[in-house]
């Protein structure tokens, strides 16, 4: 089972939930989960899971290169490029690597075979074992690079899970392309939110995404109980999405997280609750 922990709004507690879920499922288990931190723009699960990195590879995108001797400036590459990463201007051909998505269309349509592709490194993938023993991997997008998706895609291809191994994916915030790439292929979505108008607003977007991708979803409410906010429960009831867990707004949790301790280390009573989550999701989420 692939469980993706997403949120819409940033800072709601995705990593808090994802790391505690992995730690709970990994504890004394003969079938430990695989943890993937897909938030390549700001990966932080390693702060809680303390992995020992065993392998590291550079990844990137294939950007076109033009052989000026073969190019006759026909312009087909610029026409086919929907990202406008190639421009044919008079007798010059310009390439804008930061706009390129590495799709390869320009090379396919070039009648003069003047285009070859060159790997431009945009990030790294690292894998190893979390301190608790289970396999861990994450991607890190280089600073200044605009495109997270190719790094996420290659992270997911790089890691081959064992048959029937549970995979826990820590997903970036938002509902745009990096999120779609991260949750693609997931069996279940855990949507972490907070009982505030912002949390609810972005939860609605995340629920729309789950419908669009046809992935069953359940909700975890973090920082619960500080103020009364019935709109969240009302929305979940209306949308027929179960609220699987409420994590209280509590100083002790905040202080522990700030010290790099996982929720289940601060409050071990959550271990059993997290262990039961996958079974409950299979039963309650649709």
């Amino acid at each position, binding site marked *: 089972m692939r469980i993706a922990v997403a949120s819409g709004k940033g800072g709601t507690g995705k990593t808090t939930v994802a790391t505690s879920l992995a730690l709970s499922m990994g504890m004394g288990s003969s079938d430990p989960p695989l943890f993937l931190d897909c938030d390549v*723009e700001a990966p932080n699960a390693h702060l809680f899971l303390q992995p020992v990195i065993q392998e590291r590879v550079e990844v990137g995108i294939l950007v076109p290169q033009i052989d000026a001797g073969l190019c006759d400036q026909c312009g087909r590459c610029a026409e086919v490029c929907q990202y*406008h990463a190639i421009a044919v*201007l*008079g007798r010059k051909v310009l390439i*804008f690597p930061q*706009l390129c998505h590495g799709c390869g269309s320009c090379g396919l349509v070039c009648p003069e075979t003047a285009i070859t592709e060159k790997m431009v490194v945009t990030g790294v993938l690292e894998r190893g074992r979390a301190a608790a023993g289970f396999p861990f991997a994450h991607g890190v997008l280089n600073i200044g690079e605009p*495109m997270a998706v190719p790094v996420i895609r290659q992270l997911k291809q790089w890691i081959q899970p064992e048959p029937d191994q549970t995979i826990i994916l820590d997903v970036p915030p938002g509902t745009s392309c990096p999120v779609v790439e991260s949750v693609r292929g997931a069996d279940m979505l855990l949507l972490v939110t907070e009982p505030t108008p912002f949390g609810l607003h972005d939860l609605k977007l995340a629920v729309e995404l789950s419908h669009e991708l046809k992935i069953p979803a359940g909700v975890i409410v973090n920082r619960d109980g500080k103020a009364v906010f019935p709109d969240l429960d009302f929305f979940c009831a209306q949308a027929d999405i179960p609220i699987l867990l409420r994590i209280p707004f509590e100083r002790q949790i905040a202080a522990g997280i700030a010290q790099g301790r996982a929720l289940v280390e601060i409050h071990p009573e959550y271990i059993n609750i997290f262990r039961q989550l996958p079974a409950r999701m299979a039963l309650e989420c649709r």
Partner: protein
Amino acid sequence: MKIVLTTTQPDLESELDPRFGRCSYLLVVDPYTLDWQAEPNAGANASGGAGVQTAQFVSAQKVQAVISGDFGPNAFSALEAAEVEMYQFGSCRTAREAIQSFLDGNLQHVGAATRSEGHSKGRSRL
């Protein structure tokens, strides 16, 4: 001679649009006869690469100069490669005013990109 101005309306009296890649209209004008033709800017709603797309259109018009408010780094490189002169309209409000200022030699010539980031809503789209 032909020049291009970025405008908000398809009209010589239109206000100028300060955004090069994301302007609403591109006004192709002969500054001496004031014969003009307006084209909606295909780059206006592009998710990315608007400046490059608009620069390609401008290049294809075989114009000498383009007048706008801002030129991002990609648009600047593309227009420079296309050997199109770039000018900023400064305090001019309408296309007609800017054309007169251009003829009078009062517009600021642009020798480098005038801003750094794109106006795109999401740069990590795929």
